[in-house]
Structures are given as structure tokens and as C-alpha cells.
């Protein structure tokens, strides 16, 4: 999971393309989710569904709820970022960071 976080951060840092940066951000987010869910799992455990014939030990439901919230918020962030990027493209004609930062002639 740390490796995934590192790769995501590398994409965010080195890519000049704003869309690619958002993909990198998504990879970083999922790596953190992975760490949280992994910390809540139990070897040979079942999902936290009571009354369905599954037996203890159960995985921790708190971590699952946490990650569920995180995924949905990540989606909102991505959607907002994409709309902003499309707007940047329309106003400035480019989504490459180095071109955007060049002083206009």
C-alpha cells in the first residue's frame, strides 16, 4: 500500500497534465483506504453481517464505514476537479501545467 501511495505521489509531482495528476491523486486515496481496511480485517473472519449465518470473528465495521465515506467524498472531489479542468481548457486552451505557467507574450 505504501508503494501505491508513492507511485500516486510520483504521478502527482512529475506529471504536467492536470488530468493525470487527478488520476495520481485517486491512486493515493485508494492506497490509504487499503491501509485502513487491511488494519480492520481478521484472518479467516467474515464480513460484519449479523443474522446471516456467518460466524465470528467479524471484520471491523468501523473501518468499512470510514472507507465507504472516503470513497464517496473522493468521487465528489474528482468530479469537481474534472469540471474545473474542462473549464481551464476552455479558458486557457491547455491543461499542461508548464504551458499554463508560461508568461503570456
Amino acid at each position, binding site marked *: 500500500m505504501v508503494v501505491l501511495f508513492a507511485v500516486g505521489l510520483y504521478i502527482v509531482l512529475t506529471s504536467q497534465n492536470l488530468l493525470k495528476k487527478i488520476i495520481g491523486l485517486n*491512486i493515493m486515496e*485508494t492506497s490509504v483506504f487499503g491501509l485502513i481496511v487491511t488494519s480492520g480485517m481478521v484472518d479467516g473472519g467474515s*464480513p460484519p453481517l449479523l443474522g446471516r449465518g456467518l460466524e465470528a470473528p467479524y471484520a471491523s465495521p468501523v473501518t468499512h464505514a470510514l*472507507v465507504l465515506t472516503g470513497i464517496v467524498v473522493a468521487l465528489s472531489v474528482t468530479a469537481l476537479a474534472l469540471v474545473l479542468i474542462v473549464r481551464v481548457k476552455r479558458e486557457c486552451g491547455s491543461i499542461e501545467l508548464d504551458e499554463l505557467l508560461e508568461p503570456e507574450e
Partner: protein
Amino acid sequence: MSPNDVFDLLILTLLIGCALAIARLKDLAAAVVLFSIYSFSLCLLWVHRGAPDVAMTEAAVGAGITAVLFFYALTRTGRREK
């Protein structure tokens, strides 16, 4: 090594491979497809770790909606990264 460990290792290798490929690719459309694959493998990992709720969300959000939104943004911004 139990079959469980083998499965975990396989999925993790796939995840890291996808992430590295996304970092290297210049074709953004291919990167989005790879991100979709990445999300879906992650969803398998969630099921394996006893989190079906998270897996369902990941499958629908990561592999579905996010990819569609990215593709729509791509039609406007161009699929090649410079």
C-alpha cells in the same frame, strides 16, 4: 504459502503494475482504462478482506463512474499528454 496469500500477492502485483503503467503512459485514455482495471482489482481485494460493502462502492464508483467522468473530460481536453 496458503492460497489466500497467493491471491493477495497476485492482486497487489496487479495493483502496483497498473499504477506504474499509469505513471509511464502518455496516452490518457489508456491510463483511464488502467485506472478502471486498478479499481476493479482493488474491489476483489476488498471482498477478500471481508468488506463487501466497500467492494460494491469501489466497483461502482472507481471502475464505473470515475472512468466515465474522466472519458468525458478527455473528449474535451485531448487524450495525449505532452
